[in-house]
Structure formats: structure tokens, C-alpha cells
């Protein structure tokens, strides 16, 4: 089967498509100036802008703790991390703009609820230990998802991901260190860490998306080499990674079915609550409304600043024209 099937292609379209398919087959990069099937472009815009939105919304649960971080070192690390996320959002919006959509249009889709962001940020972060769990589990799952994206077939996406992945691994480590400090701390701190891991474990596993059998977009994305591994493969890889880390931390992962399977050479784990996943996706998570309202408020309250910057730039440009 062709990587990109398009039954209605005209003869010239057909030869462009053949060239595109050949590039994909040879593991070459597609660049912004290359022809690409409309469906490929749309899939990328959807995935990349969702990814950018996730970085921006993802600033909120951690931004919520910057002013209360319990040590100045943790405050500095958290500020740097949230700032990195804003930077990731910027690269990703820029990379997506190469596909013919503007940042304003993408933000508009986010603010009107038309575009999605990672559902994980619709969970609340009421505890300091959540800064640890978000780093260790949420960023950990994000890395497992994102490392293969460094080889994504679309050039600007793959290159943006290389830089993002480097910073994400620092984020995961700082999350692990927060939990480690808590687990080495007082009883109250240990309880705080365990309670947080209890809340984040299953939602983090669901970040890889529904089981392969129920993930209709995945196969096409894999054929296009945007996505390189299936949801279930990535989830398994992630579980295999975090179990020994949890043992090192001394936290219990809240899954009675979690055990090593000698035959498979992997950890078995229990069924996830996919009803909850779809409910959060539909908008009934703990924080869907809160996250979006806060994002809209920041944007709306900043409108006059952006207008001022535009007006000033226009005036500066026209006085330059007069001078020349």
C-alpha cells in the first residue's frame, strides 16, 4: 500500500504523490517547500499545534507552585522549567507556521476550544509533590512519546523535537529529584509523595492514547512516519522504565496487577479506566474549564499590549520610510 493513498489524484498530483511517497520510503525529511498531500499537512497541523498548546497549558499546573516553592533552589528550577515550556510552545508554533497557519489562528483554535491539548493538564496539581509527579511521570511519558518524534518525517517538527527532548530529560530528572527528596524526608513528606503518585500514575499511562485497536489515526501517522511506535508499545516501554525507578524511590505504583512477566520480558499491568480518559477528553476533567479560562484571561488581558506593540512597530516602520 502506498504511504499516502489518494484515489482522486490527477496525473500530475499522482507523480507528486509518488515523489512524496518515495521520500517517506527512503526515510528522507519532508521540508516546507516540498509538495505534500493535504491530509499529511492537516495531520501535522493538528498534531503539532496540539503539542504546542499542551506546552502552553502545561505551564499552568506548575506556574501555580512557583510562588510557593518550598526552597529557593526549587523555585529557581521550577521557574526555569516553566519558562522552557513557553519556549517549547514558541518553537512548535513557529514550526507549525511553516505549514501555512499563523500562531494567531492556532491560539484562536485553542481559546475557542476547537483545538485540543494533552488531557493530562486537566488534572489538578494541589500538592507540592505534584511538581515531582508531573516531572517524573508526565514529562517521562512525554519523553517516551517524543523521542521517536525527533525522527518524524516532517523536518521542522523533527528538528524542534531534538531541542525539546534535551530539555525534557532535565525536566524529568528534576521531578524525580523532588520525589526522592520527599521520600528521604519526614513522614508527612513521604505521604505527600505517595498520595501524588497515586493520582498521577494512571493518567500518565493514558497519555499514550487509547489502545491500538481503538486508535484510528495512528496507522496512517505510522505509515507517514510521523509516528514511529504504536500507543501500546510506547506505554509498555514507559511502564518498564518507571517500575525500577519507583522501587528506587520507595513509592508504590497503584496497580495491583503490576508484575514482571518472565515470558514476555516486560511488566504486565492492569486495565486502565478508559471511560475516565474519554470523559476528561470530552471536557469533564477536574480542570478543563479552569485551564482554558485562565489561558483566555491572560490572552485577553494582554490584548492591549500586543496592539500597542503593533501600533508602535507600524509607526516606526513608516517613519523609517519617510526618512529614507
Amino acid at each position, binding site marked *: 500500500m502506498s504511504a499516502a493513498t489518494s484515489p482522486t489524484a490527477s496525473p500530475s498530483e499522482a507523480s507528486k504523490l509518488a515523489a512524496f511517497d518515495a521520500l517517506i520510503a527512503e526515510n528522507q525529511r519532508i521540508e516546507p517547500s516540498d509538495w505534500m498531500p493535504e491530509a499529511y499537512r492537516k495531520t501535522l497541523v493538528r498534531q503539532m499545534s496540539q503539542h504546542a498548546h499542551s506546552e502552553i497549558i502545561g505551564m499552568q499546573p506548575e506556574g501555580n507552585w512557583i510562588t510557593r516553592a518550598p526552597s529557593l533552589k526549587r*523555585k529557581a528550577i521550577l*521557574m526555569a522549567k*516553566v*519558562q522552557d515550556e*513557553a519556549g517549547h510552545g514558541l518553537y512548535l508554533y513557529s514550526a507549525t507556521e511553516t505549514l501555512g497557519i499563523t500562531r494567531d489562528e492556532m491560539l484562536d483554535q485553542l481559546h475557542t476550544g476547537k483545538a485540543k491539548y494533552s488531557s493530562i493538564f486537566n488534572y489538578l496539581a494541589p500538592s507540592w509533590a505534584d511538581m515531582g509527579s508531573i516531572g517524573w511521570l508526565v514529562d517521562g511519558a512525554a519523553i517516551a512519546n517524543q523521542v521517536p518524534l525527533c525522527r518524524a518525517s516532517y523536518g521542522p517538527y523533527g528538528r524542534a523535537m531534538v531541542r525539546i527532548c534535551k530539555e525534557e530529560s532535565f525536566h524529568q530528572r528534576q521531578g524525580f529529584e523532588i520525589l526522592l527528596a*520527599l521520600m528521604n524526608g519526614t513522614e508527612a513528606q513521604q505521604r505527600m509523595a505517595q498520595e501524588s503518585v497515586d493520582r498521577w500514575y494512571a493518567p500518565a499511562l493514558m497519555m499514550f492514547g487509547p489502545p491500538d485497536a481503538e486508535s484510528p489515526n495512528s496507522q496512517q501517522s505510522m505509515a507517514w512516519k510521523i509516528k514511529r511506535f504504536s500507543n501500546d508499545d510506547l506505554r509498555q516501554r514507559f511502564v518498564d522504565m518507571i517500575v525500577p525507578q519507583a522501587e528506587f524511590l520507595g513509592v508504590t505504583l497503584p496497580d495491583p496487577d503490576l508484575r514482571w512477566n518472565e515470558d514476555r520480558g516486560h511488566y504486565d499491568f492492569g486495565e486502565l479506566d478508559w471511560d475516565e480518559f474519554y470523559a476528561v477528553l470530552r471536557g469533564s476533567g477536574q480542570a478543563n474549564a479552569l485551564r482554558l479560562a485562565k489561558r483566555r484571561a491572560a490572552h485577553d488581558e494582554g490584548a492591549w*499590549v500586543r496592539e*500597542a506593540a503593533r501600533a508602535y512597530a507600524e509607526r516606526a516602520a513608516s517613519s523609517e520610510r519617510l526618512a529614507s
Partner: protein
Amino acid sequence: MEHQRQPPTEVLTPEALAASVGQQGGSPSPPDAVARYALGLGDDALILAQRLGEWIANAPELEEDVALGNIGLDTLGHARSLLTYAGSAWGKTEDDLAYFRDEADFRCRQIFEQPNGDFAQTIARQLIVSAYFTVLYRGLVDSADGTLAAIAAKAAKEVDYHLDHSEIWSVRLALGTEESRRRTVAGLEAIWPFVDELFADDPAADAVPAVAVRPGTLREPFDAIVLPVLARAELAVPTTPAVAGGGRLGVHSEALGHLLAEMQVLARQHPGAVW
């Protein structure tokens, strides 16, 4: 007794300083009088960084989330170095000083604790404090205290960028739209009453004349930076009367208590805990 001049040490990260201060081969702990001076400077930076941290995820555009975050992070770095150094005189860590002192023990000047207001007011405050830090740290590079001189040398380079950022935005907002101009004027008027206090006498500085920069000497170079920016932005110097001040003596505005309540809440719920 005059504090002995030390050669400026390498660029001092707070961690490196905390690990080396008072140790053999590291920076010596400061005498009490120098520590008191450093404490005031550290509190200024800490409280400003806390305010800037409030902007992250709330800025008018992503570029400003990054920029204000960066400025806040640099400023927090200065605070950590200064507080670590000051605390070493008393067997206290930066966190002991940041989290386990009450309002009246803080020595920050009142401008740093003022609420952010809107973006225009934050930029007005940032223009003033960046200009102040610029002239302060440039002067402090020649301090007889080698550690303070080294901290100042690193900070001077960073606040130069902060000043650029606030200059650009001051002009842009003042000459942008009617609304941005109205807000800029209002922001500047709200923050200007706290300017004079920056240059008021400080007993902690007077006690260590070879180490400290006398605040009064900074007014002229400060004006030389700020007044031309206001002129370019076509903004008049506000005539709003100065507040009484007294931050260096532990006298604060109502805003500081709220800021500390938020900043200290978790640390105080778990005294003695390591994070």
C-alpha cells in the same frame, strides 16, 4: 574593623557559594556588618523575583512569559547568592532567611514588594529597578569585599539586559496606542513615589563604607539612565509625592505580608524539612 579585601572569586552560583563560603580555600564568611548590608540587597532581589514569578503563564504573549521568567530567574539568582553569603555570617542558609523571617525582619525597599499591577505598571517598576540595579552593581564591583564584588560583576551583566527589555517596552507602550499610553502614565505614577527611597541613607551601608555603595551617590547616574528614556517615551517625570519608605529598617507596605504568606506557606508547614 575594615573587612579585608579579597580577590574577586570566579562567577558565583548560589550552590557553589553555599558549598564554599566559610570553608578552607573558599570565600570567607562576612563579618556581621557586611552580612547586614548584603541582606538588604538580597531581600530586594528576592522580593522582586517573587513578584516576577507571578507573571509566568500570565504574560500578554509567550515571548514575555519567557522574558519576564528570565529576568525573574536572574534576579532570584542574585538573591540566592547574596542571602547565602549574608546567612553564612550567622549560620543560616538562604532558605532560613527567605522562609523563616517575618515581615519586620525583611530589609527590602518598598518598591520591590509593590504588586505587579498591569503589564505597564510592571514595566514601569522594572525600568526603575533595572536602572537602579545597573548603577548599584557597577559600583559594587569595586567593593572591598571580594565576594560581593564577584556577585556584583555577574549581576551587572545580567541587569544590563533587563534594562534593555524595560527601556524598549517603556517606549513602545508609551507611544503605542492611546490605551497603552494611559496605562503607562498610570503605572509610572503608581510606582514613582517609591523611587526616592532607593537613594535614602541606609545605616547598613554607612556601617561598611569601603564595602558598600552609598545609596545617595547612585541618584545621579540613575537619573542619567532613566530621564532620557522617559524623554524618548514622551513621558513627564511624575510629581506624585514620595512615600516615607523605611524598608531597610523593616518598615513595609501592606503588600509584603501577603507576598510572604504565599511564599512561605509550604516551608512553614514543614519546619526543618529538606526539599
